[in-house]
């Protein structure tokens, strides 16, 4: 297992590359998702207020 | 009363070019600013890199070209904004030239009043940077062929940021990536001359980039100006 992790001596580069890519893409995924749900809540609230107005 | 005498577009076009050149050289204008910037920025390099003549000679073409790019952008952000702010852009839109004619005239005026003097001032800076003797001709030639592209692509940036306060800084971000081909072929031509190879293919490619910039630059500027006037 350790031999696999060592990546023929290039462990630092390979795992950093994969780690960075994964974390950047996951962060984008999560932040987009969170903003979307927040905006859905905001739209529903605004619609409710509009119904209340007229 | 309403009979339209024939309007000579030529004289309208050249009176706009003439007006812009006069404005550029008048005290509030941009061209003296750009030429001043060109001189000061280039002469900073020896302070940074050291005075050894061989080193300076090696980097001279690149430095002169890069600073020429930056100086043209420095003078470009007021290309349309000045007219936009005092209302004359609306008047120009109603001129018989139409927006394409107006953009062409203003780019020609900017090229003549600002970027052309940069090309003509380059040899003086070549001396400062100990440019090899055989490189002066190709340097001015490459700048003459390349500078229209600077004004044309710069005009797109100016038209896009006409309604943006402090659009000048944004202009650098928008335009400099688009200057890369002109920079590469321009410096390539001068380097070729320095290393005794034929600069012609580089100049040809530079000319091609400028021609493309003509089409892309003018039509994009007109689209951006119409958008800003809405």
């Amino acid at each position, binding site marked *: 297992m350790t031999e696999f992790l060592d*990546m*023929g*001596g*290039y462990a630092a*580069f*390979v795992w*950093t*590359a*994969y780690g*960075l*890519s994964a974390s*950047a*893409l996951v962060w*984008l*995924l999560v932040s*987009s*998702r969170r*903003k*979307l749900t927040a*905006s*859905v809540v*905001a*739209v529903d609230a*605004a*619609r409710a*207020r*509009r119904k209340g*107005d*007229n | 009363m309403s009979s339209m005498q024939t309007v000579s577009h030529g004289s309208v076009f050249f009176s706009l070019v003439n007006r812009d050149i006069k404005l550029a050289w008048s005290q509030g204008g941009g061209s003296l600013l750009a030429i001043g910037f060109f001189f000061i920025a280039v002469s900073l390099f020896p302070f940074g890199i050291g005075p050894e003549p061989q080193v300076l000679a090696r980097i001279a073409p690149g430095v002169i070209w890069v600073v020429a790019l930056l100086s043209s952008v420095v003078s470009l952000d007021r290309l349309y904004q000045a007219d936009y702010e005092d209302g004359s852009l609306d008047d120009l839109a109603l001129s018989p030239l139409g927006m394409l004619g107006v953009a062409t005239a203003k780019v020609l005026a900017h090229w003549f009043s600002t970027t052309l003097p940069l090309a003509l001032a380059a040899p003086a800076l070549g001396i400062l940077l100990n440019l090899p003797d055989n490189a002066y001709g190709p340097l001015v030639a490459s700048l003459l062929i390349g500078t229209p592209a600077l004004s044309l*692509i710069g005009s*797109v940036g100016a038209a*896009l*940021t006409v*309604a*943006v306060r402090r*659009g000048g800084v*944004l202009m650098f*971000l*928008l335009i*400099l*990536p*688009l200057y*890369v*081909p002109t920079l*590469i*072929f321009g410096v*390539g031509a001068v380097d070729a001359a320095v290393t005794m190879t034929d600069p012609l293919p580089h100049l040809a*490619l530079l000319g091609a*980039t400028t021609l*493309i910039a003509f089409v*892309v630059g003018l039509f*994009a500027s007109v*689209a*951006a100006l119409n*958008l*800003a006037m*809405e």
Partner: protein
Amino acid sequence: MHRFANPAQFNRLADVVLPWAIGLTVLLSVAGLYYALFSSPPDYQQGESVRVMYVHVPAAWMGMFVYMVMAAASFTALVWRHPLALLAGKAAAPIGAIFTALALITGMLWGKPMWGTYWVWDGRLTSVLVQFFLYLGYMALWQAMEDEEKAGRAASILALVGVVNIPIIKFSVDWWSTLHQPASVMRLDGPTIDGAMLVPLFLMAAAYQAYFVVVFLWRMKLEINNRKLSVMRQASLQNTETQMEVAG
């Protein structure tokens, strides 16, 4: 408003596509990673470090692909004044920018073991760098003006100017890098790609593609909601104004 311009219709379509896209993304990612890390052979010269290619090349491809999507959306938005296409550009840009940034970073991480330096002015890597600036310019223009509609259309014009210039930039950078290229530097993707390496490469590329569809659709729905919010705020502003007049 022609067929696709209606946000409700777009949302319905997105809701149909999304589950499939999410499933595909997960599936392809797992398969891609398995092949990339486990079952593909090391390169006879670069050894294990070639595995970085499986995250580098797809990211560079996606950086280019998303810019094309942005350019197509910008064209539609400008020519047919299509509000959804305008939002599509805004939704896609950050994803493309992150893909391009990842391509640059993984490119450096791949270059270090091979050439001993993180940054090599290799033709392809440099074009990716210039493209990254084009993304920054596009996104900066969106925020530059108060009127979002105008800012969007200005950015769309920039995207079209950019897409016309990309091949020229690519050509000039490649031309420039061959001019200054010391003969010994190996090209970034190695002399030949061994057949077994193609499988993980395309799997990862497909995973990135599916990932893009998911995040793009989410961000589109987000932009549509933001637009709805600002429209409703504007509408309620006008309502209170008319009510005050009526009352006043």
